[in-house]
């Protein structure tokens, strides 16, 4: 639902700025993860270095979103959907920053892998990356368009990513036993796989926040609630 204009134009402007900064963070995070993975798959150290450097801007944006969010709460004391939008934007920014940290971790591991001969098992990472990024983009889309259905659709997809991570880890541990000379390389791939699994977790968190922002419903940790 697109809300009608606020009586205070300054409120709408402040909220738009907050949301634009979150969108900017999301674009930079997406780009950073893309560069890190491309750096891994194409063995490109330069891209890895750029991905690592990107993190600084995302960190600064996270601080900016927090500052703007606090200012907005302080000045306008928003309620109802306005309050949910502000709180969710701040939570989203925190998840985006952590997601970008996973991009940095991937890039660092990729640079180490690039120092040694290519491992065919690196290809295990590609489908995981594609799966995680679809979750990521859908959760951001759901937040921006306040699309509850799309946000809900992201959550069950995390299990698929978890399964891919488990399967890749099993395969890589097997390879470590078969070829101990490449032990460090396989270990780095296990770490990268786990980073992507974490990206999926953050995308899930963001989808949950998108549902809260649009429908005022807290769908977190529902699997922990005992059935009546």
């Amino acid at each position: 639902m697109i809300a009608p204009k606020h009586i205070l134009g300054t409120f709408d402007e402040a909220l738009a700025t907050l949301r634009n900064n979150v969108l900017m963070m999301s674009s930079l995070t997406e780009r950073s993860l893309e560069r890190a993975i491309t750096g891994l798959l194409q063995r490109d150290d330069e891209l890895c270095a750029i991905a690592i450097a990107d993190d600084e801007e995302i960190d600064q944006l996270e601080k900016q979103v927090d500052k703007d969010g606090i200012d907005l709460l302080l000045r306008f004391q928003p309620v109802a959907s306005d309050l949910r939008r502000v709180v969710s934007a701040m939570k989203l920014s925190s998840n985006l920053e952590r997601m970008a940290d996973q991009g940095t971790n991937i890039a660092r591991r990729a640079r180490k892998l690039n120092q040694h001969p290519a491992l065919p098992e690196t290809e295990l990472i590609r489908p995981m990356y594609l799966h995680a990024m679809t979750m990521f983009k859908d959760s951001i889309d759901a937040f921006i368009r306040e699309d509850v259905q799309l946000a809900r659709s992201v959550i069950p997809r995390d299990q698929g990513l978890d399964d891919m991570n488990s399967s890749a880890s099993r395969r890589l541990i097997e390879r470590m036993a078969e070829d101990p000379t490449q032990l460090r390389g396989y270990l780095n791939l296990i770490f990268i796989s786990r980073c992507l699994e974490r990206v999926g977790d953050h995308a899930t968190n963001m989808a949950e926040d998108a549902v809260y922002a649009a429908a005022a419903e807290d769908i977190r940790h529902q699997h922990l609630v005992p059935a009546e």
Partner: protein
Amino acid sequence: MVTVLEMPETPSQLTVNQPAPTPNLEVERGIIEIDSVDFAYGTNKVLHDISLNIPPRSVTAFIGPSGCGKTTLLRCLNRMNDHIDGAGITRGSIKIEGLDINAPHLDVVDLRRRVGMVFQKSNPFPKSIYDNVAYGLRIAGISKRNLIDEAVEKSLRSAALWDEVKDRLHVSGYGLSGGQQQRLCIARALAVEPEIVLMDEPCSALDPIATAKVEELIRQLKEQYTIVIVTHNMQQAGRCSDVTAFFYLGRLIEFDRTTKIFSNPAQRQTEEYITGRFG
């Protein structure tokens, strides 16, 4: 009737312009039961089919834009509108603890003892602090000095004013600050031991500190009294009240727990009003 405080806090979908969801009823009656009330000033009908149950020992806030009828409804609860020629309830009933307050032979003075009122602007009588509080007791026929002394102290303590005035009880009430005067008026209302206290924008003329003191007082008073407050200050409604009723153009648009109204109102008009997207 299930009072609104017993309603489960379940998430609900936003709905647009549906009739007011009068909380659904039957476990416990509201102390005030307003049933299908229409009210008119002469031919000008200003309240339309208002039904709501106000839960006992809680704070109920009436919110809405100017002219929505919230003060008119508040004044119906102790028949303050009787003083306005041609004004009155044209349909429906208001019951307090099951008693129809508009019944022909009802003792209005007794009603107003049971349903006290605090106004927007503090209005102490041109008398001493002591006499202001004692006034209601004296006109109720109580003359024993020790009983009045006791009631004055108790009321001033309840209104969180005792410590500030105990050494100058016999100086004029006009010598108090605005916030103190308002608390004096609350003490005066409490002295006759009402069951319900109506407050019509009680903090609109007060600074933030005096407002905070009155709000804290409201929180304490609800242990003993049922409080209905009209306020234009949305944050105040959010801070003080347990349930909130939103009125617009003489109609009750939404009545629900305050946390629900201010986090996820069911009606689009409520959402637009409380978020400042109205009109």
